[in-house]
């Protein structure tokens, strides 16, 4: 859905070829959500079917579906109702209806209820993996075009990286929180959870 809106919005300032659209999208988002050629042309033909864009009259409309070579030569422009859709997209918040399926939350929810699972080790392994990803994002942020954004597209890319950074950080904070809750529960005797590879209650408050 968001790809469709993004492509439509990119067509607003000027008409473009399909391959240009893909390049413009990746200029702003890196390879975070890679678009393949087929996806680009499928999306374009749906936008056209819905009357939101139209293509250059000189090329046969069927070209897009049958012959990608010819489709690449087709230039797309936005229609007035397409412009309406773009402005509606920018003035409407993204809905947060159903939380997206979160494998980690599901995994942990199951793990804490099963006797044989080392939840402490699970949390630590995940934290290390997520931290490694966070280090990678940070490395991308401090090098290359995201580090000194002087074009709007570079700024866009650095903001996308920030979004990945904040997501990973939120996951690590949540894992810290789960670990602390499980240790407390274990210390109070509610649970038999090996929440941490080391000690439990007695060393909880170690302060010099």
């Amino acid at each position: 859905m968001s790809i469709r809106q993004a492509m439509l919005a990119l067509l607003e300032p000027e008409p473009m070829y399909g391959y240009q659209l893909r390049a413009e999208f990746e200029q702003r988002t890196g390879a975070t959500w890679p678009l393949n050629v087929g996806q680009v042309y499928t999306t374009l033909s749906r936008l056209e079917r819905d009357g939101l864009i139209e293509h250059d009259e000189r090329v046969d409309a069927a070209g897009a579906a049958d012959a990608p070579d010819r489709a690449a030569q087709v230039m797309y422009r936005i229609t007035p109702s397409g412009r309406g859709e773009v402005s509606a997209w920018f003035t409407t918040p993204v809905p947060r209806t159903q939380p997206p399926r979160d494998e980690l939350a599901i995994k942990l929810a199951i793990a804490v209820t099963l006797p044989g699972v080392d939840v402490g080790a699970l949390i630590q392994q995940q934290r290390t993996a997520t931290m490694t990803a966070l280090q990678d994002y940070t490395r991308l942020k401090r090098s290359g075009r995201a580090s000194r954004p002087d074009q709007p597209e570079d700024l866009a890319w650095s903001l996308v990286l920030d979004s990945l950074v904040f997501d990973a950080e939120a996951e690590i904070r949540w894992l810290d929180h789960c670990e602390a809750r499980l240790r407390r529960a274990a210390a109070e005797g509610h649970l038999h959870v090996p929440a941490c590879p080391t000690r439990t209650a007695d060393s909880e408050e170690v302060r010099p």
Partner: protein
Amino acid sequence: MSAVVLHLDNVTRVHGEGPTEVHALRGVSFRACAGELVAVMGPSGSGKSTLLTIAGGLDEPTSGTVSVEGAVLGSLGNAGRARMRRTSIGYVFQDFNLIPALTAAENVALPRELDGERSKAARLLALAALEEVGIVDLADRFPDEMSGGQQQRVAIARAIVGERRLILADEPTGALDTDTGEEILRLLRNRCDAGAAGVLVTHEARHAAWADRVVFLRDGLIVDESGADVADELLEVTP
């Protein structure tokens, strides 16, 4: 493999005795090499601040050894350790710890002057360090005439003046907003890229992610470590 600048070997630290004794560190071995920034993460009470004060010679281990650039801190004596802190080890604190009655340049020059450098030469070194952290134009201001971010830059300049090779930072971004905090991390990172060894204690994952390695501390033990393998799944699209 780069030179090991900081080496903690099986370090323990026990505070107090008998029923109230607290094991802050329970046998920690840890190294930081030249050119490397290592982050230490853990909840409060995990021992991360103790680790840093011991690494900086501000506290002594109950057992185990700490060496900085090959010198074992425990065998140096008080005067030797103090000298080490002035010449080899730079310390950055969360609350800056600048001397309010001294200007930025005087704060930065102080460790050099205490080490016997003539004040003119010490001032030149201080100005070079302030230049490196981007605030040489504020050299003659007093701490209360500067923002938090600027004060922390002064503190970093003080930690690096005289080419010290070990930088220890205890929650250096704790009192700063997100953007300013990021600038401070960039400075630490640059200093390590230029050859210093850095140890950063933080509870913020986003800040720890600037490090080459992240060490996780729990109850005085290192429980895990995330390495620096470059997994560039998000290769940048070149324009």
